[in-house]
């Protein structure tokens, strides 16, 4: 019962949060001078006032602020995210078109970074002053401090231009023909460089955190007890210590879901990855309010879902979490 109650309260918070995100952002977008009519006219090479007025009237931008806000919130309540002025398409369609690409990129990068990060962290924690440990530290520092657009361009120059292993941009090569397998392989080829770029950032975080918590756990009493029992080093590390050192890493991974959009924007821009990050960036530039708000709405949903998943994962590795049922 307590669990259900907790769940309901959290859902309520989530709804309030979503509403706040929308109202606040709608107001902020409205405060800035100029609007989407200007960017539409820019895309058309200029338009006179009559045409601008027509565009504003068409999209209801000539209405008072509260009327616009009320209309928008009314639509959202009916699960209608509105119509993109700039792309001439329903916002939900735009987002659903782009969402899979972003999820594919971010999840692949996250999972690989998490896996490799934990392994690297554990390796370096076992011999904190060994060569391997220093190498991991260096790698982590480099991955964390190098700006992603720089890493991205460097990888492109190395692996798309000098050694032509991977394609420059996009998610698939439309000129190739073949079955599902050919296309999946093609997407995988396009995915490699963006995943390395985005993953290197996450990898740094995970490997450092895993190393730190692992070292802490290895110094704890029960590990000494386990060793005293005569278990091998390997059994101690992988059976006992690892599980206990994982929960901070999983918490961090969960928090990183909030970086789904923000982290992907730059990587998507460099690799012309047709995802939500690119769409978000372009709609902000274009002042396409309905699209921006729609993306924020979706990212808020992703963050909330991510937090819930994190909770579940923590329950699995650490029975103390949410234990009283």
């Amino acid at each position, binding site marked *: 019962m307590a669990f259900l109650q907790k769940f309901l309260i959290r859902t309520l918070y989530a709804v309030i949060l979503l509403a706040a995100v929308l109202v606040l952002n709608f107001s902020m977008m409205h405060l800035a001078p100029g609007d989407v009519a200007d960017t539409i*006219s820019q895309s058309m090479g200029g338009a006179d006032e009559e045409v601008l007025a027509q565009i504003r009237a068409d999209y209801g931008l000539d209405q008072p602020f509260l009327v616009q806000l009320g209309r928008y919130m009314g639509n959202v309540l009916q699960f209608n995210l509105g119509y993109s002025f700039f*792309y001439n398409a329903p916002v939900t369609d*735009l987002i659903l*078109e782009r969402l899979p690409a972003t999820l594919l990129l971010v999840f692949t990068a996250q999972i690989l970074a998490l896996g490799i990060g934990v392994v690297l962290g554990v390796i370096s924690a076992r011999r904190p002053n060994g060569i391997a440990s220093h190498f991991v530290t260096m790698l982590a520092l480099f991955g964390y401090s190098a700006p992603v657009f720089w890493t991205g361009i460097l990888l492109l120059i190395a692996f*798309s231009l000098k050694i032509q292993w991977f394609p420059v941009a*996009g998610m698939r090569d439309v000129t190739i023909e073949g079955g599902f397998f050919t296309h999946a392989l093609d997407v995988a080829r396009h995915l490699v460089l963006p995943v390395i770029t985005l993953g290197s950032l996450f990898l740094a975080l995970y490997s450092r955190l895993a190393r730190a918590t692992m070292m802490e756990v290895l110094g704890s009493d029960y590990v000494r007890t386990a060793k005293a029992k005569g278990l091998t080093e390997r059994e101690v590390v992988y059976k006992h210590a690892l599980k206990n050192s994982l929960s901070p890493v999983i918490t961090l991974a969960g928090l990183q879901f909030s970086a789904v959009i923000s982290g992907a924007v730059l990587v998507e821009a460099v690799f*012309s990855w047709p995802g939500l990050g690119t769409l978000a960036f372009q709609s*902000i530039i274009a002042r396409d309010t309905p699209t921006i708000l729609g993306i924020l709405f979706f990212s808020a949903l992703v963050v909330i879902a991510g937090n819930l998943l994190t909770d579940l994962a923590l329950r699995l590795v650490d029975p103390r979490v949410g234990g009283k049922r």
Partner: protein
Amino acid sequence: MRTLFKGLMTATALASMMATSAIAEEPKQGGTLVTVLGTNVRNLNSAVQSGIVTGFPGAQLFASPLRYDENWTPQPYLAESWEVSEDGLKVTLNLVKNAKFHDGTPLTSKDVAFSVDVIKANHPFKAMFAPVTSVDTPDDYTAVLNLSQPHPALMLAMSGQLMSIIPQHIYGDVPVEEVKTHPRNNEDVVGSGPFKLTEFANGQHVILERFDDFFIEGRPYLDKIVMRIIPDPAARAIAYENGEVHMGAFELLPRIINRLKKVDNLTVTPDGYGAVGPLDWLAMNTQRGPLKDVRVRKAIAYAVDKNFVLKALMQGTAVESKTGIHPDSPFYNADVEAYEVDLDKARALLDEAGYPMDGDSRFSLTIDFGWADVKPQTEYVKAALKKVGIDVQVRASADFPTWAKRMGEMDFDMSWDSVFNWGDPVIGVQRTYISSNIGKGVWSNTQGYSNERVDELLEMAAVETDKDKRKALYDEFQTIIADELPVYHINALPYHTVYNDKVGNPPLGIWGTSTPIDMTYLKD
């Protein structure tokens, strides 16, 4: 009845065939051309969406009455011939009889009349068809445009992407004003151009394939065109270099242009931008403070070194432009005041205007910029004017709409600005200088410039059908604006087209990629 370009018309199809036979190599049939676009396409229907991005796919999907060769001479396209009446008030188009839309429906004069209505109701360039009062359709293959006044600008306005003929049976199901949001603008698009739409995934690509029933026999040469959307200029550059992309246009960054010029199998050319006519200039608000005085504006022109902009900032990729008309246009007048750098003269002019040095400056001004690419130019203006005692503060705008709002409301002293000619001066030049267009949004006469003679010249040139007389009027206009400096013209935007050795006959005419590329082919 006086027939314009009559000789040319009798030779109808021959003209364009000769253009291709001039190329030594025989065009090859087939192949997939991979090209690139720098931004998303907002709308594929070029009858309601202008601009350089829609121009490329738009001109492949939709045909226009005329097309132009490299020498600004109109060529037949959907119209196999055309006549302008003696008084200039009737333009008769004789359409080809075998033109079909991609769904098989024949294209008729009704579609021409419908398209003119749609363009008039939706297209942002109101000046193009404003004098067209009605379109008569005496038979299926004759369309007569009735004009309220002679309108020589119509010739260019009937070419490129500006007059896309769209099918009435597809787009006629809504009132004409609503065609701009018609669902068929982005999917299942039906035109009569050389290529038809296969797939449009916004943010990713536009895929077109050969239209087998295209009205010009044997064309187009290509089987398929893939337009990839790659917004990052550095990634585009790598795609040209490693051969993933055959061709792209509107490359703008000097650093990238110069790098690509060194690549062996690539050609990088500034040809093909005369009609789009992109210009960079320093706008000055002639209604504010010291800038009201023409001597102050001249002093600024003498203090700002164009060569620094051309050589240091543009790294030699851009050419000088002295007036509001693009240097490639036949109407360009190079013989106007050029303002060679002369700091003493600048200081003397400022003294004369009543702004002596007071401490270490005379007065202060602001300069705006609308996008990050041109920030260095504004920083340079600040440094250059410091030397003659004008304090300049560079004012950044958060984004394009913020800047556009400031410009539209004339809330600025100086600004770096880029404005396009869009073919005839009536369409894209007049708007900056005519006094009836003061402060009507961004890219209007935001300088608040007003000169009776300029107004008179622009109005006379707009209705003058004799080419030489028209040129003389525009020459005088350019002399006056170079003298009075509502804007100080600096350079043409360094747009470049990049293509690799496999591309035969790339589109380098006056409209660049905003033309049908039915004559472009891929070599072995």
